[in-house]
């Protein structure tokens, strides 16, 4: 139950975010989530999109370097302590590189996107809990 995430390398300059979004829009790629990480000179834009392979190609044609990595999408209870509960399981002892909240909900639950150092091990760990990793189809609806 891995979700492909597109990461784009951009210079930390005005207008670059627009260049990324516009080239995806022009190619009809739907943008479902976007988060930014930056380090002074450059940034990484992490995207969940309708068609990741197409997105990487489109971005390459626009002169942008992008890559696909697998992340895990996990619904958590939309109440106080929902995320803490997930992290209190065996999943919480996995090495998590970064995480962010997905901007829409699934059956009333919030969705967390998690990037584990070892995705397979994390999915295995999830199986022993009440939580589950959802598929790309479930996520995109």
């Amino acid at each position, binding site marked *: 139950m891995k979700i492909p*995430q597109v*990461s*784009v*390398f*951009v*210079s930390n300059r005005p207008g*670059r975010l627009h260049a990324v979004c516009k080239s995806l829009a022009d190619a009809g790629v739907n943008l479902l989530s976007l988060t930014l*990480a930056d*380090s002074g*000179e*450059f940034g*990484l834009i*992490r995207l969940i999109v309708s068609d990741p392979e197409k997105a*990487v190609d489109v971005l*390459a*044609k626009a*002169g*942008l*370097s*992008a*890559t696909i*990595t697998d992340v895990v999408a996990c619904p958590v209870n939309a109440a106080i302590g929902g995320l803490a509960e997930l992290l209190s399981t065996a999943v919480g002892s996995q090495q998590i*590189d*970064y995480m962010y909240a997905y901007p829409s909900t699934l059956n009333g639950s919030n969705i967390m996107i998690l*990037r584990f150092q070892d995705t397979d091990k994390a999915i295995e760990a999830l199986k022993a809990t009440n939580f589950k990793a959802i598929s790309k189809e479930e996520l995109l609806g």
Partner: protein
Amino acid sequence: MRSTAWNDEENRVLPEMALDFMPEEKLRDLQLQRMRATVKLAYEKVPLFRERMDEKGLKPEDIKTLKDVAKLPFTMKKDLRDTYPYGLFAVDLSEVVRLHASSGTTGKPIVVGYTKEDMEVWAQVVKRGLLACGFRSTDIVQNFFGYGLFTGGLGIHGGFEALGATVIPISGGNTERQVMLMKDFGVTAVGGTPSYFVRIIDVAEKMGVDLRDLKVKRGIFGAEPWSDGMRDYIEEKTGIKAYDIYGLSEIVGPGVGCECDCRDGIHIFEDHFYPEIVDPETLEPLPDGEEGELVLSTLSKKAMPIIRYRTRDITAIEKTKCKCGRTIRRIRRIGRRSDDMIIMRGVNVFPSQIETALLRAEKALPHYQIVLDTKNNMDTLEVKVEVSRDMVSDSMSDMEQLNKKFKHSIEQILGISVIVTLCEPDSLPRSEGKAKRVVDNRKKM
């Protein structure tokens, strides 16, 4: 030993290459005879040369052996500028059939001229170089050296035409079309600057064309120094064999020398060009095997005979014989030109060292640029490196690690601290010809 690069079925040297294998004694005699004729021509027709000879109290007759060449005055790039445009020509303009000129970005360009005979010699030396590297009349050649005032495009063109190959005079630029024609025309050989070929490799990759699947087998590259690492990169990415041709417009253009199939140094076409190595400080001649500045004299040029031109290229003449059996001597491949040298906080830095460092760090050859600046009264050296698709990670710490890896590798080689900045692909300026590797914004004291 058989080498298809120079012998026929019976293991004889092909007639058009015989000059490369001339007995050494005969070669030295020919050089002396031609040197004397060139000095005489320049003395009689070129006022600047005559003045310099007179200042030294030298007459053309004083050149009795090749050892006497060391007595002759040097020619510098400045001399070509100061005599702009025709001051060093030794023939009437009516005899000149071709002019070439440098881009002249730093003031007046330098102008060079050729008689009909000079043009023939030029085509022949390039042809001999191409033959030595295994190019044949059956080749279909895409020549992306720049055509025009620059000697690269038309010089290589003339050699391929003399060889009888099919030449596509595409010049530089329009990289997607370069890839398309390479594929559609069944191109078997290419020629151009190595940095532009790396650009073609990038664009082909983007277009989904694997150059290894094409018919291209050989490439002749030159006009800028390129490292062995860059050669390995080109060969691995494309499956071609890459050869180095050497030259400079002041002497003739490409074809002063060329590698052979052994690729163990550049053979100078010594029947037309006389090489010496001098100590760049004392200007004293150095023996074969020792590194110094390459000095070249033309031996047969009529329109513009050049005596002892200081090339600024740092190399050595090889002492040993090449395995190919050629008697014409070799120089070591040019890794650095003293003109390209950056002096950074008292340390000599060459762009080729940065190239080596990048290759060592990532086993890839990203496009890069060196920017020198002054910040808080301190000179800084920044290396901007374009991040290709294979280098991107979703992890910030991986990207920071990549930056550190480049920085560490460069600092290890240079011994000074540098700033590395990762940049987007295609964000650094490119020229269609020689790569512009260095931008100097430092405040001049």
